[in-house]
């Protein structure tokens, strides 16, 4: 009876709250200078203590009771704006904020970034301002967004110099990387040493490591949400940069002032052009070489168009295309037999791989409380390899020619249609919901071989194509989440994510609850708890830790089931004088149906029989992460420390690894420290430094040798039983800025690995036999790459 009374009381209160007169203030938040919309900017009513953040498109909607309001609009790095008025009806209020170029550490009171700061329910999430990323020292002078994320707690890089990411004990294929909401399947250039993201084209980067909002799904370990700039809607601006290995240019501006904008960025490496003189010299110095050209390059093209039909309707077109290419063209002539007879050999090599991502997005404000985003997108990653060899022999009496070529192609492509709704029914609820349907096509690999042999008048031909069949799958996803403010102190985010994956006549379903809870202890302190269950339906077949273009995405099968994980997290958050954010988070994650290659198995560009080469098992990871981050002012940066452990157990019958015993995951690292700092000395000079320290990577090394049946064998105690030496490195950079007639020019000098630490890349054993004494000396050797690397770049911003 008591319970019934309580339910009635709450129901009455709820009805009363609905019947109270509420009005909605809504609009867009923009940069005053560029018109660029501001993501996750804060709108806060000092009078009622209520507030919201702008969504991914800069739109906000705040529903308040009828009363006088005192709104404050703030965003990191911008001067706050205030508006006071009597709220007696729905109102549209578009606000433009001025960037704070004074470098004064303006104190914005503790209600910034409500989604992920002290006051937000979201935890395990870090937003790194792109401006801060651009200030970091860079390898070969090339700033890399994903490498900057590796410096955050809970994120580990793979091998030296690569932009691989291992988040909270997960694998490299467990990260969902989104460019304007569209997945990018291969985020690496040049074997993973550069990512595909050109920092000049990027507006915002947010990394989710846990407590995932219900709108995300499809990967176990992280979501990297990268958003491109829309473009300046007032005037044309841009910048270009010349580096040692690449150059880039970015131009943005209005096509129709304050209505239609464009933003276009192009980056290309030119190592292939730099080696051309060497090639030409080699060709010239050897009379047998007729033609000799070879090289490698990659390029990225980002394009974004945005058009504002009205305050209620906007249309965006995002486009990215990036390719890597390796080519060679070598033609030689050999006159060794006689002057009349000669052999001609011609080798042509042409490898290409890359992504194409495009999205057409329509934003529509249905009413001040309801915002609709509908997106149609296409993403594709493809790899093609062509090798051609022609040998011919010509003499006065004979003529023969052999022509052989091999081409290999693989790809994955997705067509997606999705819709998202943001609804703020009242002051206590922020509801998001949506649906997504994706048609995946996997083209795992097709080889075509053709050969022609001609001897005088006889011709023999072979022309054959073989490979794996295309596979298609349909992925459907529905989600709903509600950010509920129970009272000033307690806020709750509840979400439910449902997915269905249909492949090869089999359907897999998954219902994934998500929850986040925040207790606001004071304006500066909060405690948060989070839970997320995630599912993943695709696997990346990869040879090694290096990202190779031959890596293949394949869907789950009847034999290899979807991976799923559960993550529990909790943390304490503190904001010191609204300047520095501190957080300590602990997490525990379990993962099931993980796959690992069997001992000795490898993937060599064909998916045939891949299920036989892998084992399924489970894993778990846990750790504690500490982050102190200062994002604005003359001095910015962060200190991150992670203590973590990640283990695997593959003990299913017939699928045992490591004798069915627990072993450390490939990138299990106990300690990881990153310290980054940037300081603006003056308007003309700014300096930056990054120092990283990490426990060495794991490797499998047999430490005992024995002999059985006359054969010397190696005894391996366990998978990943050996640890490389600890890794540490200091990078430094300095920018010299000067105001010129049409803009600002900057010289950047960066030194990667400034104290020339020889960090391990791999180790091997070597035996030196001394025939004099008949003895053998065995040594353990370590190979390092990327010792000290200075780089210089010039850029001009206009």
């Amino acid at each position, binding site marked *: 009876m008591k319970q019934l009374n309580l339910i009635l009381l709450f129901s009455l209160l709820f009805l009363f709250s609905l019947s109270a007169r509420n009005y909605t203030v809504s609009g867009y938040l923009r940069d005053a200078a560029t018109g660029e919309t501001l993501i996750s900017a804060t709108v806060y009513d000092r009078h009622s203590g209520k507030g919201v953040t702008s969504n991914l498109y800069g739109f906000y909607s705040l529903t308040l009771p009828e009363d006088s309001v005192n709104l404050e609009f703030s965003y990191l790095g911008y001067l706050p704006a205030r508006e006071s008025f009597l709220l007696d009806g729905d109102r549209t209020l578009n606000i433009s904020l001025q960037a704070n170029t004074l470098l004064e550490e303006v104190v914005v009171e503790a209600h910034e970034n409500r989604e992920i700061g002290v006051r937000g329910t979201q935890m395990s999430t870090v937003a790194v301002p792109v401006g801060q990323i651009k200030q970091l020292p860079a390898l070969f002078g090339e700033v890399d967004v994903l490498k900057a994320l590796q410096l955050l707690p809970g994120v580990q890089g793979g091998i030296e110099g690569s932009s691989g990411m291992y988040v909270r004990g997960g694998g490299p294929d467990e990260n969902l990387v989104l460019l304007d909401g569209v997945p990018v399947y291969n985020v690496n250039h040049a074997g993973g040493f550069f990512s595909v993201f050109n920092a000049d084209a990027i507006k915002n980067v947010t990394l989710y490591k846990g407590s995932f909002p219900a709108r995300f799904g499809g990967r176990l370990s992280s979501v990297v949400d990268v958003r491109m700039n829309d473009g300046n809607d007032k005037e044309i601006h841009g910048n270009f940069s010349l580096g040692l290995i690449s150059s880039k240019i970015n131009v943005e501006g209005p096509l129709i002032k304050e209505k239609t904008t464009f933003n276009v960025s192009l980056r290309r490496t030119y190592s292939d052009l730099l080696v051309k003189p060497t090639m030409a010299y080699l060709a010239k110095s050897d009379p047998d070489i007729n033609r000799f050209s070879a090289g490698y390059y990659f390029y990225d093209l980002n394009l974004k168009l945005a058009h504002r039909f009205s305050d209620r309707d906007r249309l965006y077109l995002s486009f990215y295309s990036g390719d890597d290419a390796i080519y060679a063209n070598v033609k030689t002539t050999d006159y060794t037999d006689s002057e009349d007879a000669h052999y001609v050999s011609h080798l042509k090599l042409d490898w290409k791989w890359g992504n194409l991502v495009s999205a057409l997005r329509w934003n529509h404000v249905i009413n001040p409380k309801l915002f609709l985003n509908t997106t149609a997108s296409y993403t594709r990653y493809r790899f093609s390899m062509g090798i051609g060899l022609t040998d011919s022999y010509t003499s006065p009496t004979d003529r023969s020619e052999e022509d052989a070529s091999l081409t290999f192609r693989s790809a994955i492509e997705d067509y997606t249609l999705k819709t998202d709704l943001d609804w703020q029914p009242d002051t206590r609820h922020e509801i998001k919901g949506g649906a997504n349907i994706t048609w995946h096509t996997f083209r795992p690999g097709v080889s075509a071989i053709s050969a022609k042999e001609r001897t005088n008048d006889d011709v023999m031909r072979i022309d054959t194509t073989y490979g794996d069949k295309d596979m298609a799958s349909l992925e459907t996803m529905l989600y709903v989440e509600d950010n509920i403010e129970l009272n000033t102190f307690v806020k709750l985010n509840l979400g439910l994510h449902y997915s269905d994956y249909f492949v090869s006549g089999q359907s897999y379903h998954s219902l994934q609850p998500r929850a986040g809870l925040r207790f606001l202890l004071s304006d500066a302190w909060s405690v948060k708890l989070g839970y997320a269950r995630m599912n993943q339906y695709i696997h990346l077949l990869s040879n090694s830790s290096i990202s190779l273009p031959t890596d293949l995405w394949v869907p789950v099968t009847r034999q290899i089931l979807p991976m799923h994980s559960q993550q529990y997290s909790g943390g304490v958050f503190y904001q010191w004088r609204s300047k520095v954010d501190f957080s300590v988070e602990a997490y525990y994650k379990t993962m099931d149906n993980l796959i690992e290659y069997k001992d000795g198995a490898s993937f060599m560009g064909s998916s045939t029989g891949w299920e036989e080469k892998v084992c399924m098992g489970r894993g778990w990871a846990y750790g504690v992460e500490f982050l102190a981050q200062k994002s604005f002012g003359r001095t910015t940066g962060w200190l991150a420390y992670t203590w973590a452990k990640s283990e695997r157990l593959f003990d299913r019958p017939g699928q045992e690894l490591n004798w069915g015993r627990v072993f450390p995951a490939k990138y299990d690292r106990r300690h990881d420290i990153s310290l980054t700092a940037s300081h603006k000395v003056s308007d003309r000079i700014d300096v930056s430094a990054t120092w990283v320290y990490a426990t060495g990577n794991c490797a499998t090394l047999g430490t005992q040798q024995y002999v059985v049946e006359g*054969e010397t064998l190696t005894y391996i105690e366990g998978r990943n039983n050996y640890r490389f030496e600890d890794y540490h490195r200091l990078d430094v950079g300095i920018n010299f800025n000067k105001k010129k007639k049409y803009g600002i020019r900057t010289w950047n000098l960066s030194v990667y690995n400034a104290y020339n630490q020889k960090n391990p890349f791999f180790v091997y054993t070597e035996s030196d036999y001394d025939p004099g004494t008949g003895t053998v000396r*065995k040594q*353990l050797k370590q190979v390092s790459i990327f010792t000290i690397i200075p780089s210089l770049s010039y850029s001009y911003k206009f």
Partner: protein
Amino acid sequence: MMKSLIKYGPLLLIVGLLSCEKEIRFRQEVSEPMMVLESVVVPDSTMRVCLTRSRFFLDNTNRFARVSDATLQLFVNDVATEQLAYDDEGWYQAAYVPRAGDRLRLQAEAPSLPAIQAEETVVTGVAALLAGDSTSSYTTYQIRDYESYAYDTLTYIMIYRTDGYDYVIIPTSRMLEEVTGLECRDYRYRVEFVFQDKKGSADYYELSLQTDYNAGTNDHPEFFTGGDNSFAGATMSMESRSLRTSNYYLNLDEKDEDDDILLFTNTWARRFSDEFFDGEEVKISLVLHLYDYDIIDGEGRRIPISEGTQLRLGVTLSCLSENYYLFRESRASASNDDMIGIFSEPVQVYSNVTGGVGIFGSICDRSAERLLTTPNFDTRIYDESRFIYF
């Protein structure tokens, strides 16, 4: 200056990269040597055990020390049966003769080494390996594409066939000055062997083939089959090896990356389990080719360079215990690992020795053989309609 830079730049780069290699100390705990046990038990045969010491992988030594002072106890069906004695040849010999189905346990202790223990059940082999049906056929075709190289008294003729190539070696004196072609007779044999798998038990097998050529006459030219110095009386190639039951087919060539293994070494082996044909009659089907060659001179005459070849084809079906099967499979993977090691995890070789390492296995062999012959020159029948001209 620029030229020098271009010329020596890549060299300097390589030197720079090589300087990134350095010798490092092994900083982790150095693992202690273990006792290594090796014993493969054959039912109804005397049993012997070899004990050695493992060594640290950075030890500057090339030898493995035998353990001669161990106390090695044999248990049969959990009953302590005897203590094995060390003999002069470095083996511990057992007086007990194991029988199929015996559960054996070995326990060994030796000074300064951790004690070890291993268990094995002696396998029961298949009842018999019988010769099954065989068929043969032949095709004749002319080969125009060949190369000959004369070295002193021998002439090497390299023959390109559609399915491979051969070297034929004949005395230079027999090589005609005017050769317009070669004629090849391709004898194709399908040979079957049959065995009955035991029902209700997980059985593991290893099928191995042995070939032995028997050249006809002394002045017969020798055939060189591949790229090393093993001479043979004829050339052959293996087309396929398979297992067949009433409802199951297993292609044993699937794992065969290099079909020349048999040609190079005259031995070949594949392991498989009865997971998909438990209790069935199994036919082992082998298809192979023998080739004879004639030289065709300028007048179209055929002069034989090989004839009357005999090939003894030996087949051994070994029944392995599960332990021994897993050991041999993992050892084979570990041996192949060198080719792809940089892209794969090193293979952990299976061991059933607790406290140490090695293998205590069991094996039981059944063998059978067939003699394959090609006709003599004077008995050949030329069927022009069956010639294939390239």
